[in-house]
């Protein structure tokens, strides 16, 4: 006899007949799989908190030697660092595992995705949901809270909204960088290293005031890969400061449209990559 349990979905995993329901079921299954290893999960969270703190230690050490960095005080740089890490942490949590694309290509799992009636990118994104990555987000939020008590901000409704949306917009920009650079995995077997150079590298750059970088790096990571829009430029708007290097003030408020453009670009790169994989592009 068939097991009667299989006739009805267990509580909590009921999926409606919608695309959102399908993705929801996939993400829930990933969380459930992690929850079965509780002690290792707690360790992972602790490790992520530690990584966040060690990264911040670098800023701390620099300021034990200097009063200002690129024209910004310790509290101001902490604000930038907090915004950047929050954006990166959220992106890493939601889409960070897309850099495993080369693994999925190599093992044929991507083919299995293509045999299902959902988008391949959507399935890749929902193939993991590492809650441990929340550790870094928590660190960033604590730093952000501390920095906000120390910096001098003239609060307006617009600035309050800006502060609240900046980590989310930053996450979208980093998410786009993750997806676009992961698509390299369609061409390169060792694509993960390439992706990480841009994502972790971008995270590093985004946590500092851009005034400390040379002009080539600054321009590249403002206008080509819009990392400056994750934390540095919104922080200028929050602090009511002009860009010391002369970028127009309205750019500081433009992270939203930039994030949208980044998503379009990332979607395009992904499509080209997938077309290459299926052989339509070559």
């Amino acid at each position, binding site marked *: 006899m068939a097991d009667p349990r299989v006739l009805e*979905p267990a509580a909590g995993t009921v999926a409606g007949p919608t695309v959102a329901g399908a993705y929801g079921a996939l993400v829930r299954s990933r969380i459930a799989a992690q929850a079965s290893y509780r002690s290792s999960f707690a360790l992972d969270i602790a490790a992520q908190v530690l990584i966040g703190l060690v990264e911040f230690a670098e800023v701390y050490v620099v300021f034990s030697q200097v009063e200002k960095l690129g024209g910004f005080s310790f509290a101001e740089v902490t604000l930038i660092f907090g915004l950047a890490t929050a954006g990166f942490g959220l992106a890493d949590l939601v889409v960070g595992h897309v850099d495993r694309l080369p693994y999925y290509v190599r093992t044929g799992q991507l083919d299995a995705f293509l*045999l299902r009636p959902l988008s391949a990118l959507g399935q890749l994104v929902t193939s993991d949901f590492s809650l441990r990555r929340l550790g870094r987000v928590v660190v960033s939020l604590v730093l952000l809270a501390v920095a906000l008590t120390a910096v001098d901000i003239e609060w307006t409704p617009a600035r309050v909204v800006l502060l609240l949306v900046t980590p989310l917009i930053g996450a979208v920009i980093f998410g786009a960088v993750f997806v676009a650079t992961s698509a390299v995995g369609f061409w390169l077997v060792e694509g993960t290293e390439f992706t990480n150079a841009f994502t972790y590298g971008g995270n590093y750059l985004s946590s500092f005031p851009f005034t400390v970088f040379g002009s080539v790096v600054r321009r590249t990571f403002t206008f080509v890969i819009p990392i400056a829009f994750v934390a540095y430029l919104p922080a200028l708007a929050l602090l009511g400061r002009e860009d010391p290097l002369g970028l127009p003030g309205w750019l500081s408020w433009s992270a939203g449209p930039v994030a949208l453009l980044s998503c379009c670009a990332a979607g395009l790169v992904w499509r080209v990559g997938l077309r290459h994989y299926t052989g339509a592009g070559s």
Partner: protein
Amino acid sequence: MIVEVSDLRREFVVRRPAGRLRRTRDVVAAVDGVTFGIEPGECVGYIGANGAGKSTTIKMLTGILVPTSGTVRVCGVEPVRQRTALARRVGVVFGQRSQLWWDLPLQDSFRLLAAIHRLPASSAGPRLAECVELLEMEPFLDTPVRQLSLGQRMRGEVTAALLHSPELLVLDEPTIGLDLLSKERLRGFLVRERRERGTTVLLTTHDLPDIERLCDRILVVDHGRVAFDGTLPGLVARVGAERVLVVDLVEPGPPLSDVPGTTLRLVEADGLRQHLAFRAEETTAAAVVAAVSARVELRDLAVTEPDIEDVVRRIYES
């Protein structure tokens, strides 16, 4: 027709090092002008040697690969363009590409697939219960997929491919590595699936009993081309494969070298057992048996069918 393939071609670029820095670029056609059609309800065996282009063809049929030239239509749609629409109507088992989640209990995979295919519980439930019963999966439904044996996992894969009741089921080496009992259980299940639902089946295999048991039509591919399209008896007739009648006599007799339409292949135990080969198109087993028993007294007999591996090899050679 449920599958229509016309002059299908797929090339791959193979780069090889030539000298220290240069690389040569060769274009190899894995599928080289294949044309065939499959009617709803047929079961077609797609066979050929390794590298003959079977998997490449299947990838083009299921929308994973774009053809270099030629046309493919499956269930009336163009696979790559309408990949997700096609995925709802086709079930695929790739021997090496699992549809299951290795870290979840087997039945959680089924639940997820039902959600992915957006099946209402009213249709997914009974369908799953049916597969669970017929494939005897009940004892390991709660076992994580990574702990399943190959035979158990393959039953899970087949269920995963059939959960959404596809019109076309594509199986790539479904019985590879399975023990005899598991193979037979799977074949029995597929025979029933076809009978009950009229599901069209396309399968590649190296296992020739699969073909004898399941397929009413065979496509033999060789070097990217269709070398034969017809029935198994037709294939046997085409290459002139021989059936062999093995007779055991009551007492040792003279060599039976004069039976019409046969060739004496082997005489064992001083003529107590003799092997007579004959061609299906020249005579029948019954006629041979009659001719033999007119000469000697028979104790036992057996007819061995042609070895199909051998038949396929002959197709390649011809």
